[in-house]
């Protein structure tokens, strides 16, 4: 096994382990911390695929901002749930459905022909090219995304603020 392979399987194990921690943990705060682990492992996957910018964004926005927001929400909606009631009574069905879906997806991956055989190479996308594409070729989606963020910002404030006389 080469270094890259060892790294990939290590990172994949971390990502899957963190994800399992998110869905199986009996403690909501532990679940959020497991989520950080899984998101950081996904950033590692991006680095293995030579996408440093995406890995940076993943660490800053996902592992940083989003999880802090989730932890805040957990803190504000705390009612002291019993650990036994963290999952609903439907969990065996959920486990069956999700493992069926996972099996189907993996079977589809295994039986399909994919591009990228042994001689293919991963090219590193330079930051300049990425910024150029974002601001020229993808300028309209970029602006729409900023509008979506603005609407989400205003909407979140309107939804979450305390109203007078409430």
């Amino acid at each position, binding site marked *: 096994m080469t270094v890259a392979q060892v790294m990939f399987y290590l990172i994949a194990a971390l990502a899957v382990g963190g994800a399992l921690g*998110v869905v199986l943990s009996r403690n909501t705060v532990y*679940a959020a911390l497991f*989520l950080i682990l899984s998101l950081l492992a996904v950033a590692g996957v991006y680095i293995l695929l030579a996408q440093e910018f995406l890995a940076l964004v993943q660490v800053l926005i996902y592992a940083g901002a989003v999880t802090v927001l*989730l932890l805040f929400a957990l803190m504000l909606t705390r009612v002291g749930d019993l650990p036994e009631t963290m999952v609903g009574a439907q969990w065996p069905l959920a486990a069956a459905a999700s493992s069926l879906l996972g099996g189907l997806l993996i079977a589809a991956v295994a039986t399909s022909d994919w591009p*990228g055989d042994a001689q293919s190479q991963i090219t590193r996308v330079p930051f300049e090219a990425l910024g150029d594409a974002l601001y020229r070729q993808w300028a309209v989606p970029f602006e729409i995304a900023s509008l979506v963020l603005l609407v989400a910002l205003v909407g979140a404030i309107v939804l979450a603020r305390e109203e007078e006389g409430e």
Partner: protein
Amino acid sequence: MDGASAVAQQIPLEHFLVLSAILFSIGVYGVLSRRNAVLIIMSVELMLNAASINMVAFAAYASPGAFIGIIFAIFIITIAAAEVGLALAIVLRVFRNRQTANVDELDTLRW
């Protein structure tokens, strides 16, 4: 050839896709089984990440010249940030009105 560009010769694309499939199924399990709305949002984040891995892996392996997959992943992260902000505001509002964040207790639309 440096280390990063040599990855393709050592790890086949299928391994990234299988990793993404596993993460997605775990996220589906979380969405279906959890009761707390915040934990459901966390599982949705796992699913979004699985989709991003797929996009980036395809961008790196299938079309190295055009990086549409990477642009997609950037937009996924942007939309996920907006979605988490809004969803958590809704959860906070629901919690303030009903004193619970468990989705199975929000059953006033049911008869």
